[in-house]
C-alpha cells in the first residue's frame, strides 16, 4: 500500500473572473521512502495539488471539488479539521519556497522550532528546546545553541531554509512536501539544500514530494517524476525513463529548455505560446496549441493518462498510438 494515494483530485477557485480549474483530476501515489518530483511551469497546479491535501487552500475562493487523498488509511480531504491538524506537522511536514517570508518575523526561531513538538507531543519546553538544538545541528546550522535565540532576519536565506527544514523534520514525519525549496536561493546554496534533504531522507526512510519548475533540480533528486500542465498530469514515470524516453511533447519541450543541455552560443530554446487560460475549458489536449507534433485530432476528445510500459504513463494520444516517437534531447 502506498504511503499517500491521491485519486482524481480537483481543486477549483471560484473568482469573479470565472472558475479557475487549478487542479483538474490529478491522481498519483507516493511510496514509503521514495522521492516523487512534480514538475511544471508556474500555474500548472503543482503547489495547489499539495496545498489541497494539506488543507492549506484558502476557502473561499478555493474549493476542493472532488477526489480523495488517502494517507495511512485517512482521507485527508474528508477527515475532520482536528484529524487533519493532528497529521499536519506531525506525520506530513512541509517546507516552502521563500524562507524569507515563511518564518514568522515576530517570533524567535526557538519558539517556532519547538512549536510542532509542543502541538503534537506531550513534551516539556526544556526537552523540546534540546530537541530543537539537535535538529538545528543536524541541518548544519553552526552555533545552534546560540543561534536558536535569534530572530529569522538574523539568518541568511540558505540558513533560514535550513531552519525551515529542521522545523519540518523535528517530529520525524513520514512524508515531507518540499514546495520549490531551492527556488529563492543562490545556485550554490541550492545544491547544499537538496543534498541535505536527500541525506536526511536516507537516514530516516522518509518519503519526499519535491515540487519544482526546474527539471534539472527534480531529475537529480527524484525516483519518479510527474509532469503537470494546466492542472493535469501529462506524464509520469521513473526518473530515468521520463528523461531518456520522453512520452509527452511537453516533457520533451521542457527538457529542451534546460540551458545547460544546449550548445553554447545557441539561442536558448523556449516553448512557443502561453499556457491556456485556466478559466476556460479547453477541448482536447491542453498543450496542443503549443505542440510541434499536434494534428487536428489533438484539438478534440478527452485526454487521459495511459501507461505504456512499466508505469511510464502519458496523456499524449499520438505517442500512445505510436504515431510519433519522441527522441531524448541530443545533448542529454
Amino acid at each position, binding site marked *: 500500500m502506498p504511503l499517500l494515494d491521491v485519486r482524481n483530485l480537483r481543486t477549483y477557485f471560484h473568482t469573479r473572473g470565472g472558475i479557475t480549474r487549478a487542479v483538474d483530476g490529478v491522481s498519483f501515489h507516493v511510496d514509503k521512502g521514495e522521492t516523487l518530483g512534480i514538475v511544471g511551469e508556474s500555474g500548472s497546479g503543482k503547489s495547489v495539488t499539495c496545498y489541497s491535501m494539506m488543507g*492549506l487552500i484558502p476557502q473561499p475562493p478555493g474549493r476542493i471539488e472532488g477526489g480523495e487523498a488517502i494517507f495511512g488509511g485517512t482521507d485527508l480531504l474528508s477527515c475532520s479539521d482536528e484529524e487533519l491538524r493532528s497529521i499536519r506537522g506531525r506525520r506530513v511536514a512541509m517546507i516552502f519556497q521563500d524562507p524569507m517570508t*515563511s*518564518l514568522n518575523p*515576530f*517570533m524567535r526561531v526557538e519558539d517556532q522550532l519547538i*512549536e510542532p513538538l509542543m502541538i503534537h507531543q506531550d513534551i516539556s519546553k526544556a526537552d523540546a528546546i534540546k530537541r530543537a538544538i539537535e535538529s538545528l545541528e543536524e541541518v548544519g546550522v553552526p552555533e545552534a545553541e546560540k543561534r536558536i535565540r535569534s530572530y529569522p*532576519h538574523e539568518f541568511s536565506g540558505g540558513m533560514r531554509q535550513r531552519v525551515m527544514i529542521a522545523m519540518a523534520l523535528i517530529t520525524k514525519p513520514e512524508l515531507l512536501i518540499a514546495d520549490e525549496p531551492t527556488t529563492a536561493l543562490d545556485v550554490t546554496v541550492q545544491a547544499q539544500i537538496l543534498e541535505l534533504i536527500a541525506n536526511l531522507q536516507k537516514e530516516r526512510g522518509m518519503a519526499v514530494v519535491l515540487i519544482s519548475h526546474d527539471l534539472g533540480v527534480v531529475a537529480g533528486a527524484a525516483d519518479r517524476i510527474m509532469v503537470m500542465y494546466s492542472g493535469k498530469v501529462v506524464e509520469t514515470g521513473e526518473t530515468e525513463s521520463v528523461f531518456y524516453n520522453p512520452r509527452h511533447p511537453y516533457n520533451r519541450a521542457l527538457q529542451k529548455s534546460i540551458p545547460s543541455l544546449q550548445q553554447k552560443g545557441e539561442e536558448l530554446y523556449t516553448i512557443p505560446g502561453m499556457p491556456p487560460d485556466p478559466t476556460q475549458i479547453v477541448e482536447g489536449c491542453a498543450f496542443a496549441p503549443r505542440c510541434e507534433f499536434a494534428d487536428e485530432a489533438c484539438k478534440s476528445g478527452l485526454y487521459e493518462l495511459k501507461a505504456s510500459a512499466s508505469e511510464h504513463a502519458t496523456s499524449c494520444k499520438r505517442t500512445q498510438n505510436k504515431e510519433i516517437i519522441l527522441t531524448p534531447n541530443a545533448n542529454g
Partner: protein
Amino acid sequence: MIRFILIRLLQAIPVLLIISVVTFAMVRTAPGGPFDQEVKMQDEVKAAIEAHYGLDKSAIEQYFVWLGNALQGDLGPSFKYPNRSVHELIGDAFPVSLELGIWAMLVALTLGVGAGLIASTRPNTSRDYLPMSIAMFGICIPRFVMGPLLILVFSIYLQWYNSSGWFFASDRVLPALTMGIYYAAYVARLTRGGMLEVLGQDYIRTARAKGADEKRIIFKHAFKGGMRPVVSFFGPAMANLLAGSFIVESIFQIPGLGRYFIMAAFNRDYFLIQGTVMTYAVLIIVLNLLADILLVWLSPRLRFD
C-alpha cells in the same frame, strides 16, 4: 534603545519651544485681551492690572519671562481664577482627565480589539459585517449624542448610574463609555485590517502546516504583527483621551482638563492657554514616544535600526 529614547527626548526640546512660541504669538495677536469686558475698565485701572501681570512689557520680553518661569515649574497666574496659578489648576484637573482617559482607553481596547479579532477571523461573512457595521455606527455618532443617549438609557430609564458628577466609582462608567466607544470603533477597524494583512502572510501558512489550531495562529502568530496599526494610532489617540474632552466633561459635569482648553481661549486667559497647550504637547510627545517604543518592541526587525 536607550540611545533612541535619548535622541527622541532631545528632539522634543525644539519641538516644545516652537510650539510655545507659536502659541504665544497666536494668543497675543488674537483680538481682545483678558481684561476687555462689556463694561469698559478705566484706563488707569487696566494699566495697573496689566503692569501687575507684566503685560506692559514687549511681547518678546513677556515670552522670555514666561519661559524662564515655566522652566522652573511656574506656569504663571490665571486671570480668570485670580487666586490660583495655572500650575494648580492643571494639577487639580489633569488627574481627573487622566483617570477618565485610562478608563476610556480600556473600553476602547477591550471592545475594539475584541470586535476586530472576531471580524478578522471570518472576513466577509456576517461575523465580519455585524461588528464592523456597529463600529461604523460608533464612528458616526458624535459624542454629544452618545453621552445624552447613555444618560437617557442608563440613568433615567434603568437608573443604574448617576447622570452626572465625579464622586463615586460608578460615575466613571458612562463618561468612559461615551469617550471609549468612539475610539473602540476605530480600534476595531484597525485591528481587523492589521490582522487580515498578517493572516495572509506566508508564515501563517507555515504555522498551519505545522498543525497549529486557529487560537494558536491568531494569538501566537498573528496578534503581535496585527496590532501594529492599533499601536501607531493609539499614541496620538491616547493623548486626546488623557487631555480630556470638553464635550464629555460638560455633559457629565466632570472637573477635568478638557474644559480649560475652551474656557481659557474664550477668556483670553493667556497663561492658562499656554499651560494647557504645553501640557497637551508634552502628552503627545511622550505618548508617541511610548507608541514607538512599543512598535519597536513588537517588531524585532526594527530593534537594530
